[in-house]
């Protein structure tokens, strides 16, 4: 017999939001058990809880985290994922380095505008024409890669001065990439939870037609989601270009897959309408912690790739529990 499923707790209810169905509770239990197992594994691994290892963990998470938060907007809006965020990262990094002679702030603005413009075009096509997001993002991947290779002639771009060195520093003792990630997460979560756009995004993602019937313009919301994703990718691009002191098409390779893995492991539904920026950040952290643990325990880096794949597969299979499959 299936349990009596009550409507989920409302937003004003500040009790622990435990699901009412047995399946949902099993899922929560599994999540807690997994996190607990991870913590125990971390505690029993010598060398994990050291400043060096934790800071390197935070540093690597900061890039994937930014992209994952951008991807969260796209996934939440019901458009699954984008294959073009990695190249958006690379190209905005190139724009940032190329615009550095104008000064640090103008270069950052240029890179952010460029990243947002790239994804905005996709957002228009996906939102207003309702083209297939996977196909559009793959087309964008090929187009952007081709154009960027033609323009840069396949070479990296290197800064003349060292204006970008400022971004390698620390703010209040926190490395700037980590600080930028924290700011991005907080802003993204505020936008998602407390703004009209955020609420509309959840509605469009869970049911496009209902959103249309309720008088929203879903196309505009989707466009907004893509612009947000582009901005996040550009933030990661700027940080990465500053860190490696170069702009290169190689920078963003593989980040699309890492980001969608983080989004899914964090528990954002791939069908859209459910999830949050915090969840994606958690997902990114879980993956990064797993990688570090495997590395510290002497497994080769190849095993890490496999581990991510298996984790994603398991998480997706577990999601049926949440949906009452």
């Amino acid at each position: 017999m299936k349990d009596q499923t009550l409507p989920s707790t409302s937003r004003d209810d500040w009790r622990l939001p435990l699901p009412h169905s047995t399946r949902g509770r099993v899922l929560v239990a599994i999540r807690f058990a997994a996190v607990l197992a991870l913590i125990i594994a971390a505690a029993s691994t010598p060398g994990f809880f050291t400043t060096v290892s934790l800071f390197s963990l935070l540093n690597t998470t900061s890039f994937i985290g930014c992209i994952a938060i951008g991807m969260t907007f796209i996934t939440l809006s019901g458009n699954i994922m984008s294959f073009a965020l990695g190249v958006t990262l690379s190209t905005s990094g190139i724009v940032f380095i190329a615009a550095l002679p104008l000064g640090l702030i103008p270069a950052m603005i240029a890179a952010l505008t460029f990243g947002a413009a790239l994804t905005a075009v996709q957002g228009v096509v996906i939102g207003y024409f309702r083209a297939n997001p996977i196909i559009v993002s793959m087309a964008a991947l090929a187009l952007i890669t081709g154009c960027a290779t033609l323009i840069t002639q396949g070479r990296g771009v290197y800064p003349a001065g060292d204006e970008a060195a400022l971004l390698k520093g620390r703010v209040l003792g926190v490395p700037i990439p980590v600080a930028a990630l924290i700011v991005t997460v907080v802003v993204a979560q505020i936008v998602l939870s407390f703004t009209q756009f955020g609420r509309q995004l959840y509605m469009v993602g869970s049911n496009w037609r209902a959103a249309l019937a309720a008088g929203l313009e879903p196309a505009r919301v989707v466009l907004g989601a893509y612009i947000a994703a582009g901005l996040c990718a550009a933030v990661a691009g700027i940080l990465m270009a500053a860190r490696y002191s170069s702009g290169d098409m190689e920078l963003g390779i593989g980040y699309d897959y890492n980001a969608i893995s983080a989004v899914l492991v964090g528990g954002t539904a791939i069908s859209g309408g459910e999830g949050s920026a915090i969840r994606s950040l958690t997902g990114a952290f879980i993956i990064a912690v797993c990688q570090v643990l495997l590395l510290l325990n002497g497994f080769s880096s190849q095993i890490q790739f496999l581990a991510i794949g298996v984790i994603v597969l398991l998480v997706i299979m577990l999601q049926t529990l949440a949906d009452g499959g």
Partner: protein
Amino acid sequence: MLSVLTNRSVRPYLLLVAITVVLWILDGGRGVFFTTSTAFSVLQQFATIGLIALGLGLSMIIREIDLSVAGMMSLSGCIAVLTGAGQPGLGVALAVVFGMVWGLFQGAIMVWLRLGSIGVTLGGLLTLGGLAYVVTGNLSISYPRMDVALAVNHPVLEIFSLRSLVALIAFLAAAFFMARTRVGRDVYATGSDHRAAMVAGVRTSAIVPAVFACSGMLAALAGSLLSYSLAAASGVALTDVLVPAIAAAIIGGVSLMGGRGTPIGIVGGVLVLCLLSSGLNAIGTPPAVHDVVTGGVLFLVAIADAIDIDRRLFAVQRYWREMFLRRDDHIGLTKPRPPGSVYHKEAVRRSNATPLIK
């Protein structure tokens, strides 16, 4: 005539003719485009992308998508190279069996757990890619049998090779199967309307794993033959093949909404991409141009197939018509204008009167 133009399977062939003409003009009488070597290189690429596109296309016909083919391709290459040193046939067979088992597994968990294919095959893609790294130890492993590598690529009848012949036979078999057998009909029924097909007695819970097994086998076949022909295998592949394969299927008339597209159409789509790539290469453009053209074509097809494109075009049309009609005000025509309409607001604005209705 119009019905030919709107036929989705004919579209890629029209595109093929157009591209041939354009490349011929760009060639400008140098005679570097219309050669047997261009045809051979088109068919060699066809052998690689074609089988992947066929598998993906079949999964798209049942309204799913198999993203794991890219991972399957690299992993099966590794399997074939590692096990096929003594007996090349055994390596291919093992790879294909693995592809089938993995495809069945993916299809089965989709049916049993009612999961969407994107999530499952994305996980599959990452897992298979990871396995390929583990199997190869993150290195490029070489295949000791150079004779096999040469034999696989040896030209047959000037333009074909063993690889491209295998691909063509697979396409012919698939075309026959989809058009002439009951299971083929059932596959289309599953893609057009899953529930209706189920109610009509189609065993959709068997069709889905079967199609994914097919796509896994085709990807494994492509991967193992490619690794033989390169005499090497490595874990690095992922999107390099995914974008052209999906592009080929889409250009070939397969719809992501399911139930549409034929293997013959997919052949056309793959040939379009391969011809573009080889032709542009032959007339001496940098490889990045090929990316741009592929992306551009895919972008246009995506827009042409978009759900709301007609509605938006109609809105644009109406906007222009209203712009045109508004000129009436200049000549002083006073038609009755319904309050609240664009015309009414405009008339009110022009006469500086207080609006009756905001």
